[in-house]
Structures are given as structure tokens and as C-alpha cells.
């Protein structure tokens, strides 16, 4: 039940972000799907894993699906990945950090701020890893001698 609610809300939120970012009309649905899958991966992993690991994994999924959609629809990757990572941005942590700064709880605030910073970094790592995977898939088959040998008999 909770998961269904999260599926619906994250789909709508990511699609709505597509509208805010002026994404082309035809891609809004796909923006929603990318955001939904990323968020569900995060929620499921977050039950038993560290927030940082689940963020990296969720962003990696967002990145891979975005690359796939970009190939399929011949659009820049950024259209899909941006709406997908928005739910993963540590807005809540940054907010809590700021709140603690205001009430002079500097120790708690610094801890929260550091965590928010690390999570932003792990979003970037997830995206970069998906791009590395994409480039590997592009480059390896062409250079492997086995593949060339197979093609020769023709």
C-alpha cells in the first residue's frame, strides 16, 4: 500500500518537474517513469542499507534508464536524468541542517550538512557510473578481436 502511494506520487512529481523544466511534451511520461523507478529503488534499498549506498544505486538506475530512453527517442540524456534525480536530492537533510543552525545546535547541524553533501556527491557518482557503463557498452564490442573474427567469414 505504502509502495503504491510512493509509485503514484513519485511518477506525478517527476512528470510535473518535466513541465517546470520545459521538457518536450512527448517525453513527460518517460520523465515520470525514470523518476518513479529511481525513487522506488531508493525506498526499497533504504530499508536495510545506508542512505549513501541507496542513493548511488538509485541514481545509477536513473542514469541507465535515461541513457536507454535517450538512445530510443534520440534526445539528450539530460532531459530524462534531471527529472529522475530530483526526488533523490537531499532537500530534507539540508533543511534539517539549516534548522539546527538557526537554533544554535551547530554540532547536529554540521553532521546533517556533511551527510547532505555526501549524498549530493553520491548522486554524481551514480550518474557518472551509468555513463561509464554506457561508454563501455559502446566501445568494448568493437575492439574485441573475437567479434571481428566472427564477422570475417562473410
Amino acid at each position, binding site marked *: 500500500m505504502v509502495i503504491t502511494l510512493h509509485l503514484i506520487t513519485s511518477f506525478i512529481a517527476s512528470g510535473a518537474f518535466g513541465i517546470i523544466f*520545459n521538457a518536450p511534451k512527448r517525453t513527460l511520461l518517460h520523465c515520470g517513469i525514470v523518476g518513479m523507478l529511481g525513487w522506488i529503488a531508493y525506498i526499497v534499498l533504504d530499508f536495510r542499507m545506508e542512505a549513501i549506498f541507496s542513493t548511488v544505486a538509485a541514481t545509477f538506475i536513473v542514469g541507465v534508464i535515461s541513457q536507454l530512453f535517450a538512445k530510443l527517442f534520440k534526445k539528450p540524456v539530460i532531459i530524462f536524468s534531471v527529472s529522475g534525480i530530483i526526488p533523490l536530492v537531499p532537500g530534507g537533510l539540508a533543511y534539517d541542517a539549516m534548522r539546527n543552525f538557526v537554533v544554535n545546535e551547530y554540532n547536529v547541524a554540521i553532521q546533517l550538512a556533511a551527510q547532505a553533501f555526501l549524498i549530493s556527491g553520491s548522486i554524481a557518482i551514480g550518474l557518472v557510473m551509468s555513463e561509464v557503463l554506457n561508454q563501455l557498452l559502446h566501445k568494448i564490442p568493437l575492439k574485441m578481436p573475437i567479434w571481428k573474427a566472427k564477422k570475417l567469414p562473410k
Partner: protein
Amino acid sequence: MKGAALEVEICLLAGKIMLQSGAETYRVEDTMIRMSNSLGLNGSHSYVTPTGIVFQPGEALPAKLIRIEERTTNLHKVSAVNDISRKLSSETISSEEAHQLLIQIDSSKNAYPLALQVAAAAIASGCFTIMFRGSLTDFIPGVLCGGLGFISYILLNQVFKIKFFAEFTASFLIGIMAILLVRVGVGVTMDKIIIGSVMPLVPGLLITNAVRDLMAGHLVSGLSRGAEAFLTAFAIGAGIAVVFSIL
């Protein structure tokens, strides 16, 4: 090589549109070089920072500079310029057609009317409020605060042209509204409402672009985009902080 004015113009216009619409630096450079190669200007160089583009067309022509003052997020334009670049390299359109299309894209407005964007921001805020484990009754307050914050951000940005001030005031208004709604009894968890409502203002695109630029070796662009993202995050945080310290 003397008649290359149109080709140079095409490359510069494409770069300008992409950078103003929020494309990553490396994508802007890449597209400009691809376009110039398919237009016959071999050996071109482009140097892109968030605030300006330097373009050296070919080897014999003088370099050109464009200043970028305003940057928004308009993925529609990024995608349209990308299409033109593809068509140019597959030679399905001539350079004159490409130039006309680029001028059209440059003068076009947002893909969606303002009312729809505000509605989208409001609904997204409501959804985020639930996603961040707020209670179901917080959906309506989330929608109200998010819509108010986004529309005040857009209007203030249009009037004063200072992004920091617009973001600060918008998040301040969100904070006030959320506290009022909770005191009246419409909302329950104030924290979740505020977090959900500031999400449309959070610099998610800037943060990702900053790190991507850094990793791609564009150190100047990466650091300046990072600074922009930090400034935005600080503006939002400060707006909320002021609300807490006065109430």
C-alpha cells in the same frame, strides 16, 4: 573560407541557446564542434563557461565571443538544437534552413504556459510532501505552499532580476504559509510541508551539471556552477531560517 559568416553564426547561436537553456558545458562544446565540422569549418575550437562562449571557427578566421547573461532551464530548446545538429551532420537540411530554425528556437518562449508550470510545481510539492513521509492530510497544504512559493519566485525574478532575492523571498513566504496552515489546523507536519514545497526551487539541475562538468575536466564551469548551486541552496535555507527565528 570568406563566405563562412553564416556558418559561424549558426554555431554561435546554437551554443548560446543551449547554454542559456541549461545544457551541460561539455555538451555545448561538443555540439558546437560537431556542427562546425559538418558545416566545413574543420579544426574549430570552442571554450564554454557558464557566462560566455569563445569560438574559434576553423584556423584562418578570427575568434568570436558571446556573453551569456541569463540562464534558465528549458530542456525543450536543448532537445530542439540537438535535433538540428543531428540533421546538419546527416545533411538533411541546408545551412540556411538551420539558421532560420535556430532563430525561431531562440525567440520561442517556454514550452508550457506559466499557469500550467505553477500548477505543476504545486502538485509536485504536494506529492513530495507525501513522498517524504508526511501524512496524507498534508497534501493540500503542500500544494498551496508549493504553488505560492513557485509563483512568487517567478514573479519576483521577473521584476527584480536578482535570483538570490527571489529565492530568498519565495522560501520565506513558503515558511510563513506553512506555519500559518499548521496553526490553523489544515496541515499536520510542518517540516514535511516545507521540505516538499521548496523542492521546485532546489537547484537539482545545477548540482548535477556542476559535478558532471568537474568530472569531464571543465574545472572553471564546474566550480562556477557549483557556486551558483550553493548560493541558491543558501538563499532557500536562509529564507526558511528567518521564518523560524522570528516566529
